[in-house]
């Protein structure tokens, strides 16, 4: 077994990430908070919040992505009808069961009506927690959406300053932007490496490494990615005769880890995806010089990922991000995996499928919930897809 520059093996690094993933009490974040008086933790839900602001206040941004397939939802179901997705009910479960009792603030990004309404529920259920619905512009002109967004960011920054008892300065923010630029560069490196050598950096491992970044301080996470990349590069792993796919639709409620494993076992290397988009939402470095909020706003408007929660003003551009992801990663097909009852993903899907059809890119689609346990149908579907690509892609 090969080792990384600092001596870690991939199994050790992935083992740590897996332990963080399995820990539904967020012990690592609790320990971080307890290590110094005055530390605070601010949670956030998918898809995107500017974590730089939380970091600049000296707080730990904590990604809250529901309870996965290991959390028994007892109270959460009493808050939601059967026809609403699972992530809000398991998030409520995390809240009412005390697993988030150390969290000082929660941000609910603008992604869909369910998360939007959850922000109000959180306000009522946890009145001592700072709660903010984090709205982002759907107008991408600097003087319109940009101004609005800068003011929203300023308001959030002001609130975070109040929470810590001291305003957050521009220099604090510049430092945090630099730290997150570095983290995003590493995430992009990881994705590029996986696209080149998917057998060396299997999708379940990449997912776990990325997911660790939602609970660890960013500096520690950056080091984890460096270590993992170094270890993975040193290691020789068996290459399977798999096809290469882009996995899409998984940007909010998380698929069970077993689902990602099943895809690879069924013959599909995941070479790109829209999992945990917060880690690479901004597609390039945010400038350090100049006004930091304007820089973040500019990056959001002009250099950010496309996803279903974002309006695409140009019809010709609709879905092209997916075609580009396929071309960039050398994928041979796309797997649409959408959470049941997920409006953004499911409403977007037919449009994206039309774009893929026009581009002659094969695809399949299925639904899941974060606690889906039965993987056999998914394995069969993905396996057939992989076979069909291998058999007929040249014809």
């Amino acid at each position: 077994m090969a080792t990384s520059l600092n001596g870690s093996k991939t199994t050790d690094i992935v083992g740590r990430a897996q332990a963080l993933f399995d820990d539904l009490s967020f012990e690592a974040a609790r320990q971080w908070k307890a290590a110094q008086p005055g530390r605070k933790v601010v949670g956030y839900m998918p898809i995107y919040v500017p974590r730089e602001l939380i970091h600049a206040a000296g707080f730990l941004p904590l990604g809250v992505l529901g309870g996965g397939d290991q959390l028994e939802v007892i109270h959460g179901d009493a808050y939601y009808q059967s026809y609403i997705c699972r992530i809000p009910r398991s998030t409520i479960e995390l809240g009412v069961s005390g697993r988030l009792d150390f969290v000082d603030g929660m941000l609910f990004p603008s992604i869909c009506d369910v998360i939007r309404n959850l922000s109000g529920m959180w306000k009522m259920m946890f009145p001592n927690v700072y709660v903010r619905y984090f709205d982002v512009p759907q107008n991408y002109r600097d003087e319109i959406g940009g101004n609005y967004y800068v003011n929203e960011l300023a308001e959030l920054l002001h609130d975070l300053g109040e929470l810590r008892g001291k305003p957050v300065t521009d220099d604090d923010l510049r430092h945090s932007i630099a730290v997150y630029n570095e983290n995003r560069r590493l995430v992009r490196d990881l994705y590029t490496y996986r696209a080149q050598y998917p057998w060396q950096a299997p999708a379940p491992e990449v997912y776990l490494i990325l997911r660790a970044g939602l609970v660890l301080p960013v500096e520690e996470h950056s080091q984890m990615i460096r270590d993992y990349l170094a270890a993975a590069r040193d290691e020789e792993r068996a290459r399977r005769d798999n096809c290469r796919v882009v996995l899409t639709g998984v940007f909010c409620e998380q698929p069970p880890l077993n689902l990602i494993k099943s895809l690879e076992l069924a013959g599909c290397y995941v070479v790109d995806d829209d999992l945990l988009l917060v880690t690479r939402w901004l597609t390039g470095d945010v400038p350090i010089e100049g006004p930091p909020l304007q820089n973040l706003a500019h990056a959001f408007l002009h250099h950010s990922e496309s996803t279903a929660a974002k309006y695409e003003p140009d019809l010709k551009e609709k879905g092209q991000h997916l075609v580009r992801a396929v071309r960039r990663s050398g994928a041979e097909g796309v797997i649409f995996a959408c959470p049941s009852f997920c409006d953004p993903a499911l409403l977007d899907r037919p449009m994206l499928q039309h774009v893929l059809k026009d581009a002659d890119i094969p695809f399949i689609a299925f639904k899941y919930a974060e606690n889906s346990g039965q993987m056999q149908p998914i394995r069969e579907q993905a396996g057939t897809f992989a076979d069909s690509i291998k058999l007929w892609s040249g014809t």
Partner: protein
Amino acid sequence: MTTKIVTSKSAPAKEVEKDASMVKQKEMMAAHYDRLTSAPETGEKVCATFVPGNLNELIMCFGLVNNLPEVNAIQNGLRRQSGSYVLEAEKIGHSEDVCTYVKSDVGMMAKGNIAPNGKKFPNPDVLLLSYTGCFTFMKWFELLREQYKCETIMLHTPYMGDGKITKNMIEYMVKQLKDDVIPTLERISGVKFDIDRLRENLRKSTRAEDDLVRVLQSAKNKPSPIDGYFGGIYYIGPIFGAFRGTDDAIDYYRFLRAEVEERLAAGKGPVTPDGDMPKERYRLVVEGPPNYTHFRQFWKMFYDEGAVVVASSYSKVGGVYDFGFRHDPDKPLETLAEYCLGVYTNRNLPQRIDMLTNYVNEYEADGLLINSIKSCNSFSAGQLLIMREVEKRTGKPAAFVESDLVDPRYFSAANIKNRLESYFQMIEQKRASARAA
């Protein structure tokens, strides 16, 4: 003043009692659909937009005809056509999980795009994506844009996450109106924007809004002369649709108000499809949209038991006027922004709870009933918390039924009837305990 109408062959073969105002509204709607479907001949341009965030006063400044896809879906639901449209949409790849308004619309397009008057809908010249209160709107118009390949204008309304309208929100919206929406509408219509025309339209809106509020608030009386949910859907039709800011709307609401005041003076309850409601036994507040595929059957479950809906959140989905908001001609763009920001589903959950609590108390209701819609997350997510909270604050019982907007597969009459009957018993029990105490 009522009129007997014999329904068409496709509807239940029974005479339906209608207020004169309902007849008047039917004529208005028919005229509007005729205007819409004859647009290719008359050369009028068509602007599709949504009920919440409907900027009819502005649209009219450019001589555009307003087409509202939700209203078309409702019409298809009431005419029992939406079921086949929903299936058609699912056949061509739309998920069974998503909004059935969207699927009804997409399915209708796939099956020829026929309007309620039997003629073909014209393709829109512009999609005005006035995006407030419902995330699905954005996807809906992206889907329509894909079909029609026409220009689409986004007007983004921020959500009232903290329960307040901020200066930043208003400025953002006004800028979008000034720099994006108005110039694009000018270009598409070929008509120069005239702010005085907008002011005049807004002035007309205010007059109709005043009368609408008087009508809705008449339900504070006992017995209530109106039903604020099933009947309310008729009352909001013109103002939430293509008539806000018109003389027709002023006339309609003046007429409606007089009609309601006449009923009030006579001590009458609401008119139902089976005639005057004999005795008011239960006064309810209802949260959530109705089911349209079985609208009459659903309503009958209420009036057969003497249940009147005295206030509803759904009758505020296209604008909340009963807490004082009126379109202000002196601040024409700001007032449009404020209107969009204030629609019911753009309010945060605590605000919605405050509103419903207020209704239960102000209208002296016996409790809150929630009709939870399977495919409408904007309304439905959080309703169980709303129910418990309103119950706690008012001390009045609440109940929960489930159905869908225009998908007939999700209307289970027996289940709903059962739950309603239990609910009425619960109210009786509460009353008995109160008397005993």
